[in-house]
């Protein structure tokens, strides 16, 4: 198995950083699937895989939100893990980025969002202990040290999700050679799966937009684009 360890490290570093940004610091949306996956692709030398995986996952997770104490799926882990795996697979096959490869990565790694939610829940236990420790330090009188406990809540996100993303890149390197052996029909079927899944993700996004009369607005958007597309094709043919 050919592995680029520099890429595995980069994948882990970016996966950890955006996990931190998603939950603990800033929340400027570097962690959104479209951004996080595209940058992952860029770092691993396959921006197209990152972009196409990121676009689909952005739509798939569009309606999810962290409201109050509820925990949505970890869309960031889903995006960084899938993009890292896709880019690593493309590198391992040596054939470059293809729709079939994106489909395999998405089908295998999209459910990381659910695993990430479970990990998020576990990490809350650590933060609870930190808050209790801060209160007890404040009671002892060292308030400066008490409030600084806040920053210790960040490192588990960096480490846990960094390791998880690096593992996805490694899994991509392992899976890549297996894809070379796929029969042509299956590879073609997988290539068709990508636009089908993207279309489904767009429909899920329309539903997840929380808009009143979402079906009406989505149909209006679809009709406008379909008419524009047809007009452009007719003009091109003329």
């Amino acid at each position, binding site marked *: 198995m050919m592995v680029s360890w520099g890429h595995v490290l980069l994948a882990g570093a970016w996966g950890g950083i955006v996990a931190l940004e998603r939950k603990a610091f800033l929340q400027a949306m570097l962690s959104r699937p479209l951004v996080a996956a595209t940058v992952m692709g860029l770092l691993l030398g396959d921006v197209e895989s990152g972009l196409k995986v990121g676009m689909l996952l952005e739509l798939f997770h569009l309606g999810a939100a962290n409201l109050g104490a509820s925990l949505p799926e970890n869309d960031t882990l889903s995006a960084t893990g899938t993009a890292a795996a896709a880019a690593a697979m493309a590198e391992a096959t040596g054939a470059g980025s293809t729709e079939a490869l994106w489909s395999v990565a998405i089908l295998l790694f999209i459910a990381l969002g659910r695993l990430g939610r479970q990990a998020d829940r576990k990490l809350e236990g650590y933060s609870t202990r930190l808050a209790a420790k801060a209160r007890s330090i404040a009671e002892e009188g060292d308030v400066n040290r008490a409030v600084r406990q806040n920053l210790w809540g960040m490192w588990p996100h960096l480490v846990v999700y960094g390791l998880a993303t690096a593992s996805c890149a490694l899994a991509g390197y392992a899976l890549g050679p297996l894809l070379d052996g796929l029969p042509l029909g299956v590879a073609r079927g997988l290539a068709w799966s990508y636009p089908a899944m993207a279309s489904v993700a767009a429909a899920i996004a329309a539903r997840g937009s929380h808009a009143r009369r979402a079906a009406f607005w989505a149909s209006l958007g679809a*009709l406008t684009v379909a008419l524009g597309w047809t007009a452009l094709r007719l003009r091109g043919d003329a």
Partner: protein
Amino acid sequence: MSGGLPMSVLVRVFMRSLFLQASWNPQGMQNLGLAYAVFPALEKLYPEPEARRAAVRRHLVFFNTHPYVAAAIVGGVLFHEQRISRGEETPDKVVSFKAALMGPLAALGDGFFWLSLRPAVGAICAGLVPVLEEWSAVLFLVLYNLVHFSLRARLYWVGLSLGDRLVEAVARAKLPARGARLRAVAAASAGGLAAYLAADFGANAGGASAPLLAVGCLALGAASYVLVSRRVPNYVVLYVAAALACAAGAFL
């Protein structure tokens, strides 16, 4: 200066408020983050160790709101703490200020940022991927953060200068009405992208049967919308669609 707090302290508090959720926990939620954010101001306002300890302790109680609009509460906390340090208010004022505002502001922030602005910018930029390619990710960051950071900074300033009266200023921003429009934009962009993907797929894979494949792909999207509306899990719909398309691609 803002009633005794130097600008450097105000900037430090704002920067530290970006770490509000660093140790979010189910019991106190953002309590430790809030205490961490306002600590530089408390240090300045209460040189006496005992008064400073008491001030920190009153911000280690339960606190939870939307992380962006929390800037308004952080500003308001400074407004009240300055008055408390001057003896113009009792400490319970700042506690009741936080308790009264965190719920309504959380609902406002969730509705506008999480359920409107983010889906709208996400859907628009995903829709622009075929045109802008990787620059659509850059556009996402620019569009979203123009609104995010400008509102966050403005809310902080409003809280700092108006205290409890920040509610009127926030109401004037008409965020719920703007949010409703953004949600419609999100749905329209997603629908438009579905149509583009279907047409593009047909054109690339179809040959003579291009229109049929494009319509089939679009029908798959429409059927998915109906299924998801009827609470069929998103994952099930996605995997079934992938399996159908894979079978079609392999055998047609």
